[in-house]
């Protein structure tokens, strides 16, 4: 109970949450709507996103900052992806179910991340499946741990880690292709 009491929100946190909601509700809906194409489902995603935000309000330092906007965008995208999956009847993606767990030792993505490949990197990230991109965003942009990411994605930390390595693998494959294409043109 002591722990429970210590977790009670302060008025300041409550205010912060209210301000975030008032400021970004429409924005969040639009982001979700772009992915779901259904106004009602987009509302569901926004609800889920704000519910998730209550557990990560500490990540919001300045309500008006672009960082906050980006954080919300990632959360709402991941919630919209969840809804898409559920509507397809998948608890998790078919790739998650695959026994092929990526071997981190075969991860050579770093070799392709160079200043020379920066433009390719951008185009590959933009083409990357949104489900993978949100994992990258949580990990690199919002500096979240596997456990935190797992909580936000409603999956186990192990699966979050698997998804992260799959995302890296997929990006690596895309970059390999881009770089090989460029070499072929020369």
């Amino acid at each position, binding site marked *: *109970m002591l722990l*429970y009491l210590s*977790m*009670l*929100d302060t008025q300041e*946190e*409550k205010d912060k*949450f*209210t301000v975030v*909601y008032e*400021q*970004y*509700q*429409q*924005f969040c*809906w*639009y*982001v979700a*709507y772009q992915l779901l194409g259904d*106004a*009602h489902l987009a*509302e569901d995603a*926004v*609800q889920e996103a*704000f*519910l998730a935000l*209550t*557990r990560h309000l500490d990540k919001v330092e300045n309500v008006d900052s*672009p960082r906050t*906007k*980006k954080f919300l*965008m990632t959360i709402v995208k991941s919630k919209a992806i969840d809804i898409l999956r559920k509507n397809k009847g998948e608890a998790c993606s078919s790739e998650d179910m695959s026994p092929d767990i990526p071997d981190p030792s075969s991860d050579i993505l*770093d070799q392709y*991340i*160079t*200043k020379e490949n*920066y433009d390719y*990197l*951008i185009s590959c*990230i*933009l083409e990357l499946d949104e489900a993978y*991109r949100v994992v*990258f*965003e949580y990990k*690199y*942009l919002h500096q979240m741990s596997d456990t935190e990411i797992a909580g936000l994605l409603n999956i186990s930390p192990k699966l979050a880690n698997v998804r992260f390595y799959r995302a890296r693998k997929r990006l690596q494959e895309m970059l390999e292709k881009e770089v090989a294409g460029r070499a072929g043109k020369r």
Partner: protein
Amino acid sequence: MPGSDKRDKALDAKEELLKEALDACMEEQLSFIPPECEIARMHTFSQEFREYMEKLLKTKGRPEQRNINRKEFIYSFNRAAAGILVLLVVSGVIAGGALMLSKSPKSSSADMAAPEEISEAPAEDMTEAEAPAEEPETGQIEDPGVESGAQETEEAPAGEGGAPESVEYMGGRIFLADNQKLREKTETVKTLVNSPVIARDAESIKVTIGNMDERPIYYYASMDLEVLIDGAWYLVPPKTEPAEEEENRLVYLEPGMAQDEEIFMENYELDYDAEMYRAVTYLDGLILCSQFCFENPEEDLEEALEQTWE
């Protein structure tokens, strides 16, 4: 290790570059999103959405929840109940054995076999004679609710049909509870006390509220404590009334989630010999209860001794 330092720095630089690229991609995505006022013109939030968000804004301070499934919920309760039973049996055996040795100094090695007999006897005895201890053993988790619910339904008429409006309790008067017949669970919502038999020195009792429904529920964090006297339930008033904010605090419980709440014993005058207590939880249009009683070390010891002498 200058080599590994270099490698780490190179990796950090690559991570930084990837971060930069991700940030740039996000900026690009953001650039396609119209301003809030424009989106507001495109879409008006539904009444359902607004109601949900109002509730969420109100109860934003909900505590972190433990995500457990039905199996875990049942298993943890059974484990706690089994733990209490084992403790009672072991303490009975030790106390009985010690008393027997001190009373019969001439006891031979044959007497030393007695504790083995006792170790089985109190357990049997308890399951037959002591209802609260029996529940988790016989009916797993489903049964205590059903059994206690059934027991209560039988007892309730006594309270309704002529039970005094107030009774003497711990030097004061307490009043008849508004609701005599209460269930422990519905098909989708369940409340469970951490153990049906609570130690007298326990600082608090924990009540787990489980939501097996597909939709979220709300409940009041503040619970009532009631005591069973002569077949009727009476409200045990807390020594200090909780603050209004705390009393009205709603807790949001997502589907498939369970949440623990506590009732602190120091806040109540308790009659440890009372037949039964119950923690009453107020949910969305629903009132549920979970029953418990306090351990009776003397009775346990007496039973253990009786078994020993037999």
